[in-house]
């Protein structure tokens, strides 16, 4: 039996109420919020967050493939999955691959992963994440949100077994973005909804139901990609599903998160799924994929994830539209009178990748003092070269002292810096993020989140930041 072993998801803390777009441009907007990645987030950092949620409490030693699905890869050339793999501390014999180019890319990556685990490579992690841009004042700017999901696929401890799938490929022009395009472009929607979304998804769903000898009424939850709530509801109805069978598309609270959209809905459905439930997962983009899962008894053994329910209400709704424009670099801002950030050195990044991406320091074998960054001579007992690797991730940590800095450059000023002490020893100064200054004090417990500290010379400088517990 192959299928889903675990799942996780991530929704950014910041939400932009859509009525702020109405305030900006005057045109009426859809209700609800769009989830907005902070200035230090992108599809890589959100994928790391979802992957850590997915693998929390699990041994990742046998994860031998990491597939990253996105249409908004931070680099055109340079693998994001390699960064994600280091950040979540997978072994170095993992097969990392970026899947890209279509809104259907996540279901494709999941099918590829299911094929891979059948060959006994071990288990495979698939993470989908997107952070797409719609042009100012347009429908897509309102509709799009940012977020991610992750699934561990394997043969052991399967919580949702894959019972079949069907894929259709069709070269249809619906949404696209060329190399020079900053924003998503689209054809007139009546065409691609009718001939594309409705027709192709229906064909894939019908085929997978036929192969499994099931009818729509046999399905517990239909997890259907939603271009918009209206088209989502009408396609589900036309395929013969009742509203109660259809998984909410998260449009009101998060928005359409692109290739991560249907996977996030799948994560939400797994949060409430019961053994025996049949889940039908259907995606669209230059064709359609339909995958049928049957939930097993193992789902009751999987510890609760943060997933969607653990993130959706943890939010800050105070951001302005101007801040959104700045975070996405859509507005020219006055440069700070501070030194330009220096491009990180590639050899230093490579030497220190375990420290920087996987958040390892060193611990003295003689006196057990943990150090970050790694040291060769123990600060406590002066033993030389008696160090072991020591992971700081997952250790409890509290603020020793802090300040709110109005001078340093940040796209989300003011920047809070905190001296953080780890349970078991070790101390690190962190930039804090997703932090309302009034919410912290000396002694406040913090979590850690993988973020982009800055970008210089086109190199994205990822490291960990502290944040108040969500």
């Amino acid at each position, binding site marked *: 039996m192959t299928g889903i072993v675990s799942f996780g998801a991530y929704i950014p803390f910041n939400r932009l109420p859509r009525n702020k777009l109405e305030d900006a441009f005057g045109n009426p907007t859809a209700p609800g919020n769009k989830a907005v990645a902070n200035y230090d987030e992108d599809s890589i950092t959100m994928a790391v967050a979802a992957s850590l949620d997915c693998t929390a409490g699990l041994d990742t030693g046998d994860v031998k493939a990491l597939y990253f699905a996105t249409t908004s890869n931070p680099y055109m050339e340079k693998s994001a999955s390699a960064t994600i793999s280091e950040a979540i501390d997978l072994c170095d014999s993992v097969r990392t691959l970026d899947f890209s180019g279509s809104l259907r890319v996540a279901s494709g990556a999941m099918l590829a992963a299911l094929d891979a685990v059948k060959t006994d490579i071990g288990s495979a992690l698939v993470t989908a994440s997107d952070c797409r841009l719609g042009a100012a004042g347009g429908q897509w700017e309102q509709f799009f949100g940012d977020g991610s999901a992750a699934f561990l696929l394997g043969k052991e401890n399967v919580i949702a077994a894959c019972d079949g799938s069907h894929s259709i490929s069709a070269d249809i022009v619906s949404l696209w973005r060329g190399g020079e395009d900053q924003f998503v472009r689209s054809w007139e929607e009546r065409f691609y909804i009718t001939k594309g979304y409705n027709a192709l998804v229906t064909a894939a769903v019908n085929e997978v139901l036929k192969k499994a000898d099931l009818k729509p009424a046999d399905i517990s939850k239909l997890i259907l990609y939603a271009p918009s709530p209206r088209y989502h509801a009408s396609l589900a109805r036309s395929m013969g599903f009742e509203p109660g069978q259809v998984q909410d598309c998260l449009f009101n609270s998060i928005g359409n998160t692109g290739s991560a959209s249907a996977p996030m809905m799948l994560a939400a459905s797994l949060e409430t799924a019961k053994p025996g439930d049949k889940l039908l997962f259907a995606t669209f983009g230059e064709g359609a994929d339909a995958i049928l899962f049957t939930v097993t008894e193992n789902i009751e053994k999987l510890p609760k994830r943060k997933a969607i329910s653990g993130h959706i209400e943890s939010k800050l709704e105070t951001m302005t539209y101007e801040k959104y424009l700045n975070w996405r670099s859509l507005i020219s801002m006055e440069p700070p*009178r*501070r*030194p330009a*950030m*220096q491009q*990180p*050195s590639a050899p*230093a*990044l490579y*030497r*220190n990748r375990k*420290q*920087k991406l996987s958040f390892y320091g060193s611990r003295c074998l003689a006196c057990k*003092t943990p*150090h*970050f*960054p790694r*040291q060769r001579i123990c*600060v*406590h007992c002066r033993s030389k070269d008696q160090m072991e690797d020591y992971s700081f991730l997952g250790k409890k940590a509290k603020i*020793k*002292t*802090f*300040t*709110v*800095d*109005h*001078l*340093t*450059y940040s796209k989300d000023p*003011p*920047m809070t*810096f905190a*001296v953080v*002490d780890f349970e078991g*020893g*070790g*101390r*690190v*100064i*962190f*930039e804090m993020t997703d932090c309302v*200054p009034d919410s912290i004090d*000396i002694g406040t417990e913090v979590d850690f989140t993988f973020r982009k*500290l*800055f970008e*210089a010379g086109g190199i994205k*400088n990822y*490291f960990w930041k502290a944040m108040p517990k969500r």
Partner: protein
Amino acid sequence: MSRGIKDKVAIIGMGCTNFGEHWDKNVDDLMIEAAYAAYEDAGISPEDIEAFWLGTHCSGYSGLALSSPLKIDCKPVTRVENFCATGTEALRNACYAVASGAYDIALAIGAEKLKDSGLSGLVVVETPSDGTRPNYTAPSSFAFVPPAYERKHGLDSKTMKEVLARIAWKNHKNGALNPRAHFRSEVPMEKILNSPIVADPLGIMDCSGVSDGSAAAVVVRAEDAHKYRKDPVYVKALSIVCGSGTGILEQDFDFTGIHETHMGGLDAYRQAGVTNPREEISLAEVHDCFTPSELIIYEDLGFSERGKGWKDALDGVFDLDGALPVNPDGGLKSFGHPIGASGIRMLYELYLQFQGRADKRQLDDPKLGLTHNMGGWPWHCVASVCIFGKDKG
């Protein structure tokens, strides 16, 4: 443990430029001004100097930065750098060279030209790195101190803010009496308390300014000093210590005192034979880069008991007319901090005070003075503590 060179060398001439925004001068102009003022003060000609030490953080590299503008031809010129103790480091090296007998007469000069960069605050040119260090500013690293101090010593944040403002107020009051200072007016407490926040709780008036400047000192062996002038100033102690970084690796460090300043102070007191600094030191020029720095320096250097520095500050102990005047020349608050120049600028005030040349700031017969610099961060820094005296012995 250092043996020290108490009373082995003396300062026989000094020069110090005005500190400030020298839009019309480059670093060469500032060094020429300071060096020639020192020559004139010592009654010597430029050719008399046998060896030179230049302290500059980022305004020039190698000895050529000094030999070229001063037209020093084929003599030993060494450029040194040690963060905010850079100027003191130049002096220390010149003193040791003379004490060793290698040279009879040496010049220590510090200089910095910061105002040509167009940036706010101090700028450190970083070596290539993996970019992990958080982008905290100098004020934010010292802003970690007040909340920790409040917790440990039971102050409320309002009192803390007043203590810090009182320190800034005192230094500006002193600086108003100093024609060489960058900022030469008193600043009302209200204005300090309400200045815009830079790094909470520090406002802009809790921070030292950014300035250009240079200062120089001529060093000879003590036995030769009276050949040059009747009132030389004697070097009693020169201590520079660097921390191991324990403050940011281990959890013992609590941000209410600076280990390096404390250890540098103990070393300097031992070299100078000082056992009760509060009583024996007549005046101190300390590194008030930010107001919390000066507060904890009082305690680190033994001017105040631990946890009592804030009260002494409010009681005026460190005022110009207090028991132990601290930063009588106006400090970094009034002078700004041209990094390489600051340490020697501090010595210049002691020199003037011992010689009775401090005009409106003149103290009543000071005998022993201390200079202190601290470069880096409260948890990891270079600290210099030096002691100078009016008399031998």
